[in-house]
C-alpha cells in the first residue's frame, strides 16, 4: 500500500484544462438556470392556473428523475429529431434544465416571503406590473435567495461530473484518462474528491458572505 502524488505532477496541466471546462460549463449552466429559474418562479407565483400548472409539472419532473437519465434523454434523443448539439452544449443544456427547477424553488420562496404591504404600496402608487416585478419583486426575491442559490450552484458543480458519461472530458472525464495512464486510480480520484470538496466549500463560503453582505441592513 502506497500513496504517491508526485507522479501525477506531469498531468496537472491536463487536469487544469479539465477544471477550466468544468468551470465554463458550470458558469454557463448557472446563467441558464437563473434565467429559467426566474421565469419558472414567476410562472409558479402567477395568477394564471395554466402557467402555475405547467411550471409545477416542469419542476416536479426534473426534480424526480435522475440527472443522468435527463442527460441521456437529451444526448441520444436530440440528434434523433435533427438537433445536433455536441456533448458540451448538451451538457450545459441538461445542467441548466435541472438547475432551473431547483433555482425556481429558491426564487419562489424569495417571492413568497415578500411582505404583501410592499406590493400593495407599489400597486397603489400606480407602477406598471412590469416595473413592479423588475424593480421590486425580483431584486428582493433574488437578494434573499442568494444563500439557497449558492447550494443550488454547489449541486450544479457536483452534477457536472456526470457530464463525463457523455464523453465530455471535463475535470472528472480528464481524471479518468489520467487514472488509466498512470495506473494510480486511488491517488487520482482521492485528489479529485478533495479538489471538488474544496471548490464547492469555497463556493458556499462566498455565497454565504455575499448573502450576509446583501441582506445586512435588512436583518439588523
Amino acid at each position, binding site marked *: 500500500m502506497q500513496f504517491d502524488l508526485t507522479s501525477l505532477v506531469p498531468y496537472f496541466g491536463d487536469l487544469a484544462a479539465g477544471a477550466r471546462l468544468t468551470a465554463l460549463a458550470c458558469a454557463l449552466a448557472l446563467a441558464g438556470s437563473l434565467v429559467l429559474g426566474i421565469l419558472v418562479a414567476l410562472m409558479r407565483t402567477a395568477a394564471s392556473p395554466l402557467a402555475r400548472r405547467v411550471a409545477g409539472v416542469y419542476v416536479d419532473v426534473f426534480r*424526480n428523475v435522475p440527472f443522468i*437519465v435527463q442527460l441521456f434523454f437529451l444526448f441520444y434523443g436530440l440528434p434523433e429529431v435533427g438537433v445536433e448539439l455536441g456533448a458540451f452544449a448538451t451538457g450545459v443544456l441538461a445542467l441548466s434544465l435541472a438547475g432551473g427547477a431547483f433555482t425556481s424553488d429558491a426564487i419562489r420562496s424569495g417571492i413568497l416571503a415578500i411582505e404583501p404591504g410592499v406590493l400593495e404600496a407599489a400597486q397603489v402608487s400606480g407602477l406598471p406590473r412590469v416595473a413592479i416585478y423588475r424593480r421590486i419583486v425580483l431584486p428582493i426575491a433574488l437578494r434573499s435567495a442568494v444563500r439557497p442559490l449558492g447550494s443550488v450552484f454547489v*449541486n450544479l458543480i457536483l452534477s457536472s461530473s*456526470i457530464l463525463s458519461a457523455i464523453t465530455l472530458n471535463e475535470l472528472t472525464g480528464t481524471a479518468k484518462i489520467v487514472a488509466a495512464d498512470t495506473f494510480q*486510480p486511488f491517488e487520482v480520484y482521492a485528489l479529485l474528491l478533495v479538489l471538488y470538496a474544496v471548490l464547492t466549500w469555497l463556493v458556499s463560503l462566498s455565497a454565504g458572505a455575499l448573502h450576509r453582505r446583501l441582506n445586512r441592513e435588512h436583518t439588523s
Partner: protein
Amino acid sequence: MMHYTDFTPHDLVLLVQGLGVSVALFAATALIGLVIGLAWATLRYYRVPLLAPLAALLAELLKNSPVLVQLFLVFFGLPVLLELDLTPVEAALITLSGNTAAFIYVIAVSAIESVGRDQLETARVFGLSRWQTLHRIVMPQAAAFALGPLAGLLVNQLQVTSLISVIGVVDLTKVGAILNLRTLKPFIVWTVIGLLYYLMARLIAAACARVETRLRAHRACCWMKSPARSIPK
C-alpha cells in the same frame, strides 16, 4: 454492420430486473447508511475525541464531492490500493452507504441540535444519564424534526443510485443504456426509464408523508413545526 432490433417481450423482463436491482441497492444502502450515519452522530453527541471530528470531516468530504468520483475511488482506486477484488455491486454498496451515511449524519446532528440546551440541562439536573437523555428526551423530538429532511434525502438517494450504472451495475439506468443502444429509440427508452424513476420517487415521498402524518397524529403535539424539504439534488 450492426443490426438493430425492435423491442421484444424479453425487454420487459430486463426492465423489471433493472428495477429490482435499483430498488434493492437503494433499500440496502439507505438502511446501512442510516445505521452508520446515526453511529457517527452518536460519536458527536458523546464528544468522542478524535473519532467525532474525523466523522465530521469525512461527512463533509462525502457531502461536498460528486458521488461519481466517490464511486470511481472505491471501484477503481480501492482495489489497487489494498490489493483486493471488488465487484461493481460491492463497490456500489460501499459508496452509496457511505454517501447516505454522510447526509444522515448531517440531518441527525441538526435534529439533535434542534432540541434546546435548556432541556438537556434540565434532564441533567433531574439526574438522567447522558444515554437516558438521548433516549428519552432528545431522540423522540429529533426524530420528529428529522422526518421532513429524511424524506427529501431518500428521494435524492434513489436518484443517486442511477450513477452505479457507470461502473457497470445492471440497474434501471444501465438497462436503459442497453435498450437504447440496441433499439436506437432514445425517446421511448429514456422516457420509460425516467417515468419508472419518477413513480418510485413519488412512492417514496408518499410513504414518508404517511409515516409523518401517523407519527404526528399519534403524538398530537403542536411544538413540532414541519421542516421544509431542504435537501436539493
